[in-house]
């Protein structure tokens, strides 16, 4: 069973088409990155998943069920536009969020206390939200998202506006929630975070999926994965065209582009037999490069399956 499934989903606002026939599949238990430039339709897609706006066409399933009513109580959502009721006390606000997600009031209250302590905010529980700094409010929002131990957590740009320390704290929580068994979907355009955190990604542009799959696979598929080799000896395998498509030899250092379908593992095995390997590195293209390459070249490129 998948955490989230979208089949041929369309949504337009007046003349603008925000989402155009999007298919999306988020397996359970992974950290999934929803990527795309500004205006690609990320937020619209997430809002449709949360049943905040209705799609014009298409089917959306969450945890195997149509995305309405009780199944959405098992989802936690942190919108990009983060606002809290400024006049409410922190602990009461969290209690309200918990109850609105189906927790008993007492349970919501005690969990809110635990989470506040975890973020070092226990002394602020009885303060009004408006008395907190922006950073603290962000953390309170975050607590509100995970308080009810959701099976799926959707975070829209979770790192925007966070200082490095808070970013690390949030990252820790994301990893902790993954260990608990939750599926985490986050949208972002910060590629660095995606490379480090995500298991799978889907890149959308102009409302369509243009690239998807496990991060390693995406990288493999895109951009030549060059191999750097520092060696002593006679590397005869360089002349084997079934292994090497192109090389650039400097005598003790060579950059190799493997032939189609040849993994760096195979190259390394041959290299070890023929030369003394001092350094071996697979240089992967960064997601950042792929992102730019795909978005800019979108018109010319086939959507990979």
């Amino acid at each position: 069973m998948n955490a989230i499934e979208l089949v041929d989903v369309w949504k337009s606002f007046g003349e603008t088409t925000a989402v155009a026939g999007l298919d999306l599949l988020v397996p359970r238990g992974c950290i999934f990155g929803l990527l795309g430039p500004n205006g690609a339709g990320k937020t619209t897609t997430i809002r449709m998943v949360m049943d905040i706006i209705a799609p014009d066409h298409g089917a959306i399933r969450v945890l195997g069920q149509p995305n309405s009513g009780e199944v959405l109580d098992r989802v936690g959502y942190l919108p990009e536009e983060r606002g809290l009721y400024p006049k409410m006390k922190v602990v009461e606000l969290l209690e309200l969020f918990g109850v609105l997600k189906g927790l008993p009031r007492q349970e919501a209250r005690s969990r809110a206390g635990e989470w506040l302590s975890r973020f070092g905010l226990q002394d602020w529980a009885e303060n009004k939200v408006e008395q907190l700094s922006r950073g603290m409010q962000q953390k309170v929002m975050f607590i509100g998202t995970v308080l009810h131990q959701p099976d799926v957590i959707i975070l829209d740009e979770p790192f925007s506006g966070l200082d490095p320390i808070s970013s690390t704290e949030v990252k820790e929580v994301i990893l902790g929630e993954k260990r608990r068994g939750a599926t985490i979907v986050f949208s972002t355009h910060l590629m660095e975070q995606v490379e480090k955190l995500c298991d799978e990604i889907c890149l959308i542009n102009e409302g369509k999926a243009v690239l998807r799959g496990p991060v390693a696979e995406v990288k493999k598929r895109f951009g030549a994965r060059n191999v750097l080799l520092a060696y002593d000896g006679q590397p005869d395998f360089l002349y084997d065209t079934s292994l090497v498509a192109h090389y650039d030899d400097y005598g003790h250092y060579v950059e190799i582009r493997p032939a189609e379908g040849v993994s760096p593992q195979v190259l390394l095995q041959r290299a070890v037999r023929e030369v003394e390997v001092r350094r071996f590195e697979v240089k992967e293209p960064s997601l950042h490069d792929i992102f730019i390459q795909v978005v800019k070249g979108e018109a010319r490129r086939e959507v990979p399956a």
Partner: protein
Amino acid sequence: MSKTLALIRKEFLQRVRGKGFWIGTLALPVLLVGLSFVPALLMHVSAGKRNNVVVVDLTRRLGQVLQADASDSKLKIQVVTADSAQLPVLKNRFSKRISRGEIEAVLFVPANATKPENVGLELYAKNVSNFELNRALRTRVSEAVVEVRLVDSGFDPMLVRQLTRGLDLKTFKVGKAGVQQRSAGAEFMIVYLLVFSLYMTLIFYGTFVMRGVIEEKSSRAVETILSMVRPAQLMAGKILGIGAVGLVQYFLWLIMIVVFLTLGQQWLGSAIGVEGFVGSIPLGTLVAFVVFFVLGYLLFSTLWAALGSIVNSESEAQQLQFPLVMLLVIPFMAMFYVINAPNTTVSVALSLVPFFAPILMFLRIAVDPPAFWQIALSVALLALTIWVAILVVGRIFRVGILMTGKRPTLPEILRWLRHG
């Protein structure tokens, strides 16, 4: 359902804990009670200071009769017996005392007053247009003169007292429920106050709901909340939560008014009283008040919620809420016609219009209860309108609440209605 309850609880507590709620709860009755009872209080205070009046009695016979009746709360009469020869001196002396403010007025009763002749009394005072004083004084002196005349004609003084005792006037209202004692002024005041409260609170709480929706939008909390509850639940939570605040506020006002009137009765005697005001509101009117407040609130707060959802700020809402306010101003204005002619075709028709019914049908019930089918029809029409309004507004609300920036145009709103 439990989510809606949680939202109602939040709206309710947030407002009841606020300072604004208590200021409003205290200020309004103080204002209303003040406005309606200040005249009574003033009358009581000025009545406490009895007017000093000198009666110069040339008949030499009124002294005993006039002073015997000391129960008069308005006048303190000093009788001076004199001859007509002393008149110029007395006129001079009392004129001076009036100028100095020692006495309010001096009344000269001519010597032939006790004879059955048509004679005139002469009143000297600083303020000769004090009708209250003039009438009281004339009545007292006339009664005394009549008494003397009757005794002169051979009647027994005691018998004369008994026979000339005046009669009190009580007014009775004939209604469906039977005949009830009611005072004409109080009747109008009660109806007016009730209708005015309806009118004020419908506008007040409607605006309250609208402001709540605008706050929700501007705090940007709305997207988080909408990921937890349906727009209909959010709207219901707002409307019912604030409605509950309204009912609590009414209940507090009722308690305060009863307490005030009870205390007022003790302090001021019969000048005002619980029976006079609260006691004379028939149960049917009270039930109708609650029913039409609740229905009217549901209708108008729903409309105001829609308005709140399509604007970005309160100043933007100011311009747009004019038509809504008019829906309440029109029946309030029509009240002055309907109260005098509650059963004409125009009155019946107006009171059946769902938007006017909360005020006008209630008014008709309070003044002269119409046929039951008319009440039932107006309640049914009102309920139907509320149902349609909730459906329509729910669609506007659902889209509008997430909109920021440009205010939607009317064609856009109509499109939401079709596709929402």
